[in-house]
């Protein structure tokens, strides 16, 4: 976290997104607002289908339209309105402005390219969009530096390997390398530690934190794992059914989650030993976006549901500590 540089880097305002499916239109995001300051790590957490990946893809404008249809809202990145930007402008922003790393490193990397060729693609983008002249020798040095930054042992060896020859943790670092070689101001990380061992996961989190500290790269950290998010993020956005249910500082949300959904998410994490009582899991599963209930979208699973929750969707309530919660319980009487 770099203090003193609190200016907005990214501002998403009231973003509403539909997907056209064979079963009709599905609302994927409803009035989602978020901001990411310079040098900040912001977590977007929620279960599958909550819209967190769609939000990431919408920001970097990687959603095909159709089926995606942005109904309303704005995405502003450093005074650039991304929803109005044309392809030329977007390709200047993608990379040096906003980079993205995907969950499936095996799918994100080209299987017939060695690591050096994967990285060269990103450097090529720098050459073309920034007009930089980078010699072959400098290019090689850049690659080795990046792999060193990512604490990959024997960078020269890694550069010569195809994706399938690398372990999951190494591959994920190569795909992070492809994004950070362009020194983005904002890095969108979509479930980058999912499927990795705790130990490798911890390593990658450390590397990202270190990168953030050294270069001031802001990060949007998308994950379903609250514990992982709480380790690395300064602020959290908790999503459910395409809405931000709660947002606030990580420490504050960890200590006193206000929304019943957030509370349930924490309670569902096993903590005790084998003789511990059953986990207070929320009943039911992630909602079907085609058949959302009226009122608050969490109301069928909420233990504290009131009649009001079934009738009317709550607005955003702000708490004393500056966090924002989408729940009638926070309404001041």
């Amino acid at each position, binding site marked *: 976290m770099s203090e003193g540089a609190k200016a907005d880097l990214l501002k998403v305002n009231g973003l509403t997104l539909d997907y056209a499916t064979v079963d009709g239109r599905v609302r994927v995001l409803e009035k989602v607002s978020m901001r990411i300051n310079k040098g900040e790590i912001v977590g977007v957490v929620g279960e599958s289908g909550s819209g967190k990946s769609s939000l990431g893809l919408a920001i970097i404008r990687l959603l095909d339209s159709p089926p995606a249809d942005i109904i309303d809202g704005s995405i502003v990145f450093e005074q650039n309105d991304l929803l109005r930007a044309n392809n030329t402008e977007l390709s200047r922003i993608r990379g040096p402005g906003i980079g993205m790393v995907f969950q499936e490193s095996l799918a994100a990397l080209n299987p017939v390219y060695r690591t050096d060729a994967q990285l060269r693609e990103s450097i090529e983008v720098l050459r073309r969009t920034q007009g930089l002249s980078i010699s072959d020798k400098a290019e090689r040095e850049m690659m080795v530096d990046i792999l060193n930054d990512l604490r990959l*042992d024997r960078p020269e060896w890694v550069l010569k390997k195809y994706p399938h020859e690398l372990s999951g943790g190494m591959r994920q670092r190569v795909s992070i390398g492809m994004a950070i070689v362009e020194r983005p101001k904002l890095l969108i990380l979509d479930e980058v530690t999912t499927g990795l061992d705790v130990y490798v996961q911890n390593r990658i989190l450390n590397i990202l934190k270190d990168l953030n500290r050294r270069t001031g790269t802001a990060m949007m950290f998308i994950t*379903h794992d609250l514990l992982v998010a*709480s380790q690395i993020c300064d602020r959290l956005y908790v999503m459910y059914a395409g809405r931000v249910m709660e947002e606030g500082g990580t420490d504050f949300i960890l200590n006193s989650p206000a929304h019943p959904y957030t509370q349930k998410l924490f*309670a569902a*994490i*096993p903590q*005790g030993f*084998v003789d511990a009582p059953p986990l207070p899991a929320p009943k039911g599963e992630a909602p079907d976006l085609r058949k959302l209930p009226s009122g608050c979208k969490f109301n069928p699973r909420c233990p504290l549901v009131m009649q009001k929750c079934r009738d009317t969707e709550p607005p955003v309530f702000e708490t004393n500590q500056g966090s924002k919660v989408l729940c009638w319980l926070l309404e001041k009487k």
Partner: protein
Amino acid sequence: MSNIVEVNNLTVSFIVRGGNLLLFERGGGMMDVVNDVSFNVREGETFGLAGETGSGKSVIAWALVGLMKPRSGSIRVLAKEIDFRKKADITYLRRNVGIVFQDPVGSLNPRLRVKEIIREGLIAAKTFDRREYDGRIEEVVDLVGLRKSSLEAYPRELSGGEKQRVSLARAIVVPRKMVVLDEPTSSLDVSVQAQVLNTLKDLKSKLNLSYFFITHDINVMKYMSDSLGILYYGKLLEVGRTYDVVTNPKHPFTVRLMSNVPGLKRTKLQGREERLTEQGSSATGCVYSKVCPRVFEKCSNPPPMFNLGADHHAACFLHEQAN
């Protein structure tokens, strides 16, 4: 308490052609993916197995249901040693030990309805009369917490949590002593995971089941298992009662593993980390010696399991004096 399953010096090998299998560049030949592993699963208890990707956890699971033949060592089920060459023994093994695989999509036949999938378990075991099938299927569906209406559904119509419940129903439709659970919740959301874990614990006490539980999530492991083994490159490095291993880990690898477990109390990341060799194992000495921070001369020999008392064992020369 008696042991349901006793595994002694289990070694499972793969044939490797040429060198360079993944990261460890070696010559061709046999490679012991599970190497001299011993542990017991007690009646009505859960034995948890933790380890990194590729450490051989699933291979042990497959051997426990006869999907993989050991090269040496023995597996005893209810005190009877399984001869993997005898079909009757494999049948005996599978009548007593069921399995739920990690991937809920890949392990359910997409062209069968739920009731047919569960019925396959009954057909394979041949212990029930055909006329009892439907009643038994309804009973077990109720046990695992599925709605009756799901019986007519195809797997694709079910959610991830429901699919794992179908797998579980198939595994216990024949009353078994033990179920092997290979990462049963790793593909599920945390709230659904909690529901499935609750069901698993509930069934364990209701049916006096034992579980062999594989996971890489230490929080889940702590919550589910009575005893725990830590596997690294096919070697069991530490085994003991879960509480002891988690709160007082002895092997340097376990120590590091436990210190990496994210908890609800916020642990600030340092952003710094000692530079370590990527991964790797030593072919001759202790498998962990190549990356171990506390390595010393003796580690060039393979360490035996040292008994630390109270069922706690660790394969590390640092604990030699305990004997």
